[in-house]
């Protein structure tokens, strides 16, 4: 391993990390919003919309992100819609992330026993009060592990962005290997930078899981 090469490559990787994190987190935030909206629609069984959402979830959970990105990147211009590679990456991540987040939130909501809403109703609470005071807080604490797993999954999925010529970490590594054959150094940095991006999220996830469980059940 040549440390001079590594020093030389470092700025390129830092720049690529910046782009990966930016696209990754924008996509994740949007997918959380999308997931929440869809989960609420499924929970309250909104007619028609719930059917559309079920189809959307199956479509996006059962096709690879790479295929979805190709579809958006090369397919949308054919329909006259032009978007940049970045927008395409964020959109792709939002759509696949939204389908995973919906399932996580929905399963959290449906895990709450019906006796909980019945006893809240029997105390005279209105439906929205039952939902916000009784159902939602419990659903959130149940959803946290799946939610954190989704975030890590989505950050890792950003590695396919290179396929639509986004200069993310993967793109940078492949580029350097192709140009200069410094395979070991380029791959070493790739692993290190993915760990830099993901390890803090993992650790934060473990911490939050412990905190939420404490708050919820008083262990």
């Amino acid at each position, binding site marked *: 391993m040549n440390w001079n090469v590594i020093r030389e490559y470092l700025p390129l990787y830092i720049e690529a990390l910046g782009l990966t994190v930016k696209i990754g987190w924008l996509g994740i935030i949007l997918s959380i919003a999308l997931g929440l909206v869809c989960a609420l629609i499924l929970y309250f069984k909104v007619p028609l919309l719930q059917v559309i959402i079920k189809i959307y979830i199956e479509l996006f959970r059962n096709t690879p992100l790479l295929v979805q990105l190709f579809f958006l990147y090369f397919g949308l211009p054919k329909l006259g819609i032009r978007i940049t590679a970045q927008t395409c990456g964020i959109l792709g991540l939002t759509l696949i992330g939204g389908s995973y987040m919906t399932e996580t939130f929905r399963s959290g909501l449906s895990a709450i026993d019906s006796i*909980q809403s019945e006893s*809240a109703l*029997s105390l*005279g609470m*209105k439906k929205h009060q039952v939902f916000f005071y009784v159902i939602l807080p*419990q659903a959130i604490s149940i959803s946290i592990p799946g939610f954190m797993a989704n975030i890590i999954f989505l950050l890792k999925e950003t590695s396919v962005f290179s396929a639509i010529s986004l200069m993310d970490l993967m793109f940078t590594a492949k580029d350097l290997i192709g140009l200069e054959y410094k395979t070991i150094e380029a791959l070493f940095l790739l692993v290190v930078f993915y760990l830099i991006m993901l390890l803090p999220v993992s650790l934060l996830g473990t911490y939050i899981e412990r905190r939420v469980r404490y708050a*919820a059940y008083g262990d």
Partner: protein
Amino acid sequence: MSIKNEILKIEHLHKAFGENVILKDFDLSVKSGEVIVIIGPSGCGKSTLLRCINGLEDIQSGKIYVDEQPVIQGSKDLYEIRQKIGMVFQSYDLFPHMTVLQNITLAPMKVQKRKKEKVEKEAIELLSRVGLADKKDSFPRQLSGGQKQRVAIVRALCMHPEIMLFDEVTAALDPEMVHEVLQTMLELAQSGKTMLIVTHEMSFARAIADRILFLDEGELIEEAPPEEFFTSPKTDRAKKFLQTFEYSKK
């Protein structure tokens, strides 16, 4: 007693789940301060009856009045009527993410818009009456089954209900926990609370009830004061049912 004192009135109640008839032409009138115990074999419709009174189940025909207000599924008044009905369920229905005190004060504060300090003061008073004042900051999972059910009773009482419904509240408890919960209910009955109790605890039923209702297959088979019912039941079905609680070596 005058009609004004009638807290609960049920006329020709008919309830079915699809083809499966649960309650047939059921009538009941409960006066203020009365303690009524409903017994009968599993699946006879006892629990469903309580759920109908609270509007948790829709009914096919008949009328239910609580404090002269009709209970109608989906009506706006239902939220108001439910405040007059306290209900305690068989399984633990406390909110696991809230402390005992938060469990008790949530509805009085959010539904009845009462002041936090006053509600908390009352909650602690009620808790100390059932011997659980020191548990006010505990979470439900830190309590025993019997303690949970006593908190659930306090939570219902804190809404100042006109009538309390108890749906087999000791059925899921270990035997040694049953006593403390039944004791709490006996004290409640002595204080003059109107109560409608579904239970399988026969000696408790005999001790607490003003009237026993015996239900079988969705019909009211027999209605009598407890002594009369337990010593000389009139119907064969009631006799048979009571025999299932007796054991003898043959």
